[in-house]
């Protein structure tokens, strides 16, 4: 069990107690860790029809075997639960330093059960585990929460060394788009996992670990790490583009490819996109790049805005933070018709502080703007004129959403429920009630299939086909055709499940040729487990199918594997096309070994050991 710590902390918040469980290696091996192991535990222990906010839902924090090992980009932990936003299985992934610290404390993961009577936080200092009152800082932002926990610790060295994951007011108030924030600005963003944490009255987890991750052969591991690092550094995207400009370098590219969602996806090109692009961020608000644990890429952007109009909460004059990332700057920007970078950055900071997913929050504002402009959502309900391009409206609505004030109360339920409340669910741009990220599939067909079939709804980090379709990272494909895309999407989805389970950041796959062999070499060098590439490929497929089974049991059907009407019927993209999902979906089901209703066949399930 080297690389894994072999232990999981199971915390029952209703009883206020915990115990430590050993992980059965035979249970673990077919799921690898992280997303795979967490999903398996959720599938085995939670009825998929459970109310996500009920005590019976569980909230699982899980690392992978490579998390914290020092392998390049080995910072990740995942939060697995049933999503209150989509009703699907949720697995939200974050970097920073929290995940590695949890492993240094001796645990691969934590399972939270039940609901606390009063607000609490979990304190972990190696073997010392305690459920402590969070009454004093319930209601505070994520930043205030972290500062508060540190300030309470007498030992100043320890106070500096702990790592904190917490929810803000959005999670406490059960906003379905609430996230978990760790290290102040890294987010397990999607699917509303922060709201499940809030429903359990769990404000935060503070962890300090001083232990070591055991490695079977340090020299072999060191060699594998150096090799992987060289591959990442040699990749044009991971070695040059992301370090220099962060993810927002995509803005101009996606705009030139005419797939940049603009004004809630009514158009796909934004005239002033350059004002919000990574290049402009680098020239204006960027202080320095910031990396997560053991990351040679450092795509994070430590930024600063000084305009008093556009600072975050808490300080009237001056504010620093992280972001905006590509998805954030695009959806708060072009999709809201806004090219004011300082205002977008402020809205981003607000989301981090209040604990809200920036993608869902931004997309919900864009939906509100279209509802307003079309006369479906009246000014008296909004409290302001929310026309596209109105940067003040973005900031005010973001804050209202985080606090559930006024119109923010329904917006905190996410874009689908907002659009439905005002009679126009077709203006919600997402799938399975999860707001879509910032690539219009009318000009990149595979992403339409990806959004429609991803097990958590419209999502880019469950199969980042953009890497080949637009960027040509591994091979360059034609984004406008549907041929071959079912297979491409399946391949991307399955390898992503493996990366997410390993504890590596998905961005390793943006290094040219960083594929199964590289992952295999790192995992085996760290663990001595001797995984074959075929076994890893099966693990990816097994996880995709397990998640699908959870969703089917939760009540989702083939009818949920679809896209917003706008993308299927209104022409867009560089050639005025629609997304031709119907040309790809049946082939995708077939390749997956699913029947025409998208249900995995008995043969497929028994082949994967899921029967």
């Amino acid at each position, binding site marked *: 069990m080297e690389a894994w710590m072999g232990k999981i902390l199971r915390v029952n918040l209703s009883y206020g107690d915990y115990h430590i469980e050993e992980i059965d290696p035979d249970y673990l091996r077919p799921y690898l860790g992280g997303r795979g192991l967490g999903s398996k535990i959720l599938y085995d222990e939670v009825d998929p029809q459970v109310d996500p906010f009920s005590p019976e839902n569980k909230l699982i924090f899980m690392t992978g075997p490579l998390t914290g090992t020092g392998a390049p980009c080995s910072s990740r932990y995942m939060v697995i639960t049933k999503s209150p936003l989509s009703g699907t299985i949720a697995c939200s992934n974050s970097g920073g330093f929290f995940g590695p610290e949890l492993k240094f404390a001796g645990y691969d993961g934590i399972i939270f059960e039940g609901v606390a009577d009063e607000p609490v936080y979990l304190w972990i200092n190696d073997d010392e585990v305690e459920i402590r009152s969070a009454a004093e800082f319930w209601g505070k932002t994520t930043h205030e929460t972290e500062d508060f926990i540190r300030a309470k610790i007498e030992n100043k060295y320890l106070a500096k060394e702990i790592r904190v994951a917490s929810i803000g007011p959005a999670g406490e108030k059960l906003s379905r788009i609430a996230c978990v924030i760790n290290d102040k600005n890294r987010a397990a963003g999607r699917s509303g996992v922060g709201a499940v944490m809030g429903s359990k009255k769990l404000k935060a987890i503070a962890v300090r670990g001083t232990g070591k991750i055991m490695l079977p052969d340090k020299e072999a591991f060191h060699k594998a790490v150096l090799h992987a690092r060289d591959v990442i550094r040699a990749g*044009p*995207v*991971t*070695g*040059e*583009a*992301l370090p220099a*400009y962060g*993810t927002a*370098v*995509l803005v*101009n*590219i996606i705009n*030139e*490819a*005419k797939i940049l969602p603009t004004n809630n996806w009514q158009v796909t090109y934004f005239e002033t996109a*350059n004002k919000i692009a990574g*290049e402009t961020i*680098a020239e204006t608000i960027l202080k320095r790049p910031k990396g997560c644990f053991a990351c040679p890429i450092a*795509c994070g952007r430590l930024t600063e805005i000084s305009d008093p109009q556009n600072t975050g909460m808490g300080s009237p004059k001056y504010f620093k933070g992280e972001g905006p*990332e*590509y*998805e954030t700057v695009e959806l708060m920007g072009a999709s809201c018709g806004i090219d004011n970078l300082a205002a977008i950055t402020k809205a981003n900071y607000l989301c981090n502080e209040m604990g809200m997913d920036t993608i869902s929050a931004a997309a919900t504002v864009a939906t509100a703007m279209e509802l307003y402009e079309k006369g479906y959502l009246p000014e008296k309900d909004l409290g302001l004129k929310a026309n596209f391009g109105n940067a003040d409206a973005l900031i005010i609505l973001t804050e209202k959403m985080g606090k559930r004030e006024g119109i923010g109360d329904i917006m905190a339920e996410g874009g689908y429920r907002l659009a439905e409340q005002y009679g126009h669910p077709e203006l919600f741009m997402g799938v399975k009630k999860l707001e879509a*990220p*910032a*690539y219009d599939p009318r*000009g990149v067909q595979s992403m339409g299939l990806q959004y429609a079939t991803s097990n958590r709804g419209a999502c*880019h980090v469950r199969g*980042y086909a*953009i*890497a080949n*379709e*637009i*960027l*040509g*990272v591994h091979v*360059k494909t034609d*984004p*406008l055709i549907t041929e071959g895309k079912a297979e491409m999407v399946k391949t991307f989805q399955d390898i992503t499940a493996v990366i997410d389970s390993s504890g590596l950041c998905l*961005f390793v796959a*943006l290094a040219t040729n960083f594929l199964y062999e590289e992952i295999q070499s790192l995992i085996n060098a760290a663990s001595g487990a001797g995984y074959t590439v075929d076994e890893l490929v099966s693990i990816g497929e097994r996880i995709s199918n397990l998640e699908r089974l959870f969703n089917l049991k939760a009540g989702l059907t083939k009818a949920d594997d679809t896209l917003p009407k706008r993308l299927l019927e209104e022409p867009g*993209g*560089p*050639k005025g096309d629609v997304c031709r999902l119907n040309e790809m979906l049946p082939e995708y089901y077939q390749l997956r070994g699913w029947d025409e209703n998208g249900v995995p066949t008995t043969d497929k399930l028994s082949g994967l050991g899921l029967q």
Partner: protein
Amino acid sequence: MKFKQYLPASSSDGKAMVSLKDGGTLGDLLDTLGIPPDVPKLVIINGISRGVSNTVNAETLTDGDVVAIFPPSGGG
């Protein structure tokens, strides 16, 4: 930042009009701008992302084509 050195003086906001001889190719455009052929990592012509290759470089451009040329880029 370095990539911007290839922009003609007449450019604004990263965009410029460039005249080519009749039948001019993408390769000719790169020549005109002084961009070594191995420097661009992504070329988008009229909204269609094309990657980079000798074949793409040999393609004839027509009047009014919009060509976007990028150094290594990407990642969302």
